[in-house]
């Protein structure tokens, strides 16, 4: 049977991540949340999530915490992605295709600039 082989590699990764964190600690972690209810999944949320993870991996971005939530009652706006950056209030984006997700990662998560085109107005 095959299983995870290189847990020692993972230990190294942890140490590197902790060392990196000390350097960047002042900027704080950014939270990226993808809605993953049935409505979100049917609208393509997995591909949105995939784009987010690939972006983090490709750009080697530390201090980003990705998580999921269920349906938030705005099914017609799915896929939905939310960003909480530093002390700013949560921004909720709608109809986030993989392309839109990459744009939000680049503009909002990396540079701190909200991407107005995809913001769902009047949502927390």
């Amino acid at each position, binding site marked *: *049977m*095959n*299983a*995870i*082989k*290189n*847990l020692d*590699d*993972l*230990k190294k*990764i*942890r140490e*590197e*991540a*902790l060392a990196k*964190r000390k350097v960047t600690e002042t900027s704080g*972690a950014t939270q*990226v949340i*993808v809605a*993953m*209810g*049935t*409505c979100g*999944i*049917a609208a393509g949320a*997995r591909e949105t*999530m*995939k784009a987010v*993870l690939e972006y*983090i*991996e490709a*750009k*080697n*971005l*530390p201090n*980003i*915490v*990705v*998580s*999921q939530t*269920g*349906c*938030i*009652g705005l*099914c017609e706006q799915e896929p939905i992605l939310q960003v909480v950056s530093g002390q700013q209030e949560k921004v909720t984006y709608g109809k986030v295709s993989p392309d839109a997700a990459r744009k939000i990662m680049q503009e909002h998560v990396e540079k701190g600039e909200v991407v107005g085109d995809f913001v769902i107005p009047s949502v927390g």
Partner: protein
Amino acid sequence: MKEISLHILDIAENSVTAGATQIQIQVAENINNDELVVSIKDNGCGMDADKVRRITDPFVTSRTTRKVGLGIPFFKAAAEACEGSFEISSEVGKGTLVSVKFRHSHIDRMPLGDIKGTILNLLIGNPEIRWIFRYEYNDNVFEFDSQPVIEILGDVPMSDPQVIKFLRGSISDGIDQARVANHHSV
């Protein structure tokens, strides 16, 4: 939804919502028996008998944001459309088990799809849950248990770029190896 893997993601999200701390996902492709079997087992809050009976009805849902739940009826319909079967059993306080069987070679069977993406998504999106993923291809088995990963990482997030890379590689290699090892006998 056009992939079995998307349905797996959807059913597993129900387990997350049910407050599960451990979720087991099994995917078994058995070409010799012409079967594709999927099961999702959790230790979440479970449902009473009445709710289990009604859960495959598209007009019953446990969600509070909207009144119609479609995930389980969709998956059931997909299995039954290709001589498959769908079973759900649940116990309040113990958890829920969903098992779905497809005829592997049935022309109407939707593809398994991006199972690697589904598993990576669940792991990273719900890092506090212990995920046990088992993939079988004929006699070959790949098993991934996130418990040692959770223990080693401590407060380092699963969405750290190097951790994503590690998890993606582990899952992808494990599944590929299980498939390749059988390739000549198919």
